């Protein structure tokens, strides 16, 4: 069994990409909480549906950013391969 350094770097990059994508957990929880409170707000006050929708989407988009940072890091690790060139 021979392990060359390029294969090792590739395997480590793949594991790192997998760990980096775990940042999606937090943003998913945040978006779910925002959607839940948005739904209950619409249930209490159906007249303000448009305002609630836009506020909820804005908050969800901001909450999504951290998850996307993880995604970008994972994509860099997987496809750009900054290490071991």
């Amino acid at each position, binding site marked *: 069994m021979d392990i060359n350094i390029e294969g090792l770097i590739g395997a480590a990059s793949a594991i790192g990409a997998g760990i980096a994508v775990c940042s999606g957990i937090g943003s998913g929880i945040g978006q779910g909480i925002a959607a839940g409170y948005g739904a209950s707000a619409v249930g209490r006050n159906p007249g303000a549906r448009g305002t609630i929708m836009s506020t909820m989407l804005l908050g969800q988009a901001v909450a999504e950013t951290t998850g996307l940072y993880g995604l*970008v890091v994972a994509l860099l690790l997987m496809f750009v391969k900054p290490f071991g060139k």
Partner: protein
Amino acid sequence: MQNGFALGIDAILFEEKQPDFYIKELFPINFFGNTVYITTTHVCTLIIVAVIMILTLAARASVLKKSAKPSLFATGVEMVIGLLISFVDSTMGSKPGKKYINYIGTLFLFVFLSNISGLFGLRPPTADYGTTLCIALITFVMIQYAAIRYKKLGMIKDLFQPVFIFFPINVISEFATPVSLSLRLFGNVIAGTVMMALYYGLMPLWTKFGIPSALHVYFDLFSGAIQAYVFCMLTMVFVSDKRDGK
């Protein structure tokens, strides 16, 4: 892309390919001694700009045409413009919103058409970090211009809020705005592009009929429309926050 006809039926049905979502270099040009490439991003951006120009010229012609009964297209254009005006007015206020309505409308059209261009077989220009960073830098300049215009020296005083020590943090948060704006759009669009490319590249051929249309509706249409809306919304929120914040 489907060059499977020369192979056997097995190879067609169960062929595995590499996922294909990279920016391709089409032909090189010489730029002050360096070799730079015209990529798929440039070509797709030009196609989208051409589509927008044709659409707007057609809309202008149909709205300006004098007739007793306006055509269906002219009515649709007026409805869209009315929606845009109410969208900008409700976020920025009707008086200052008038100045930004052209920029917001252009931004929305470009980002929306870019995001859904994956439906038409193009590679979305917003899946290239160069495009989204440029749009976000334009927004950054607009935000800072609004701050200087409406707050004058109060803008520098705001950097030292609430205590003197917070100056570096405030400066970093100013510069984090375009980074987070551009990365949000880029990340969403490239996530959709990568997912579609993985599906098309790694699944066997018999799964490629019918099922991808549902994925296209989510990743291209829904996500693209939401992201275009959010980008315009955040631009307006940041600008009006600088304008009439304390």
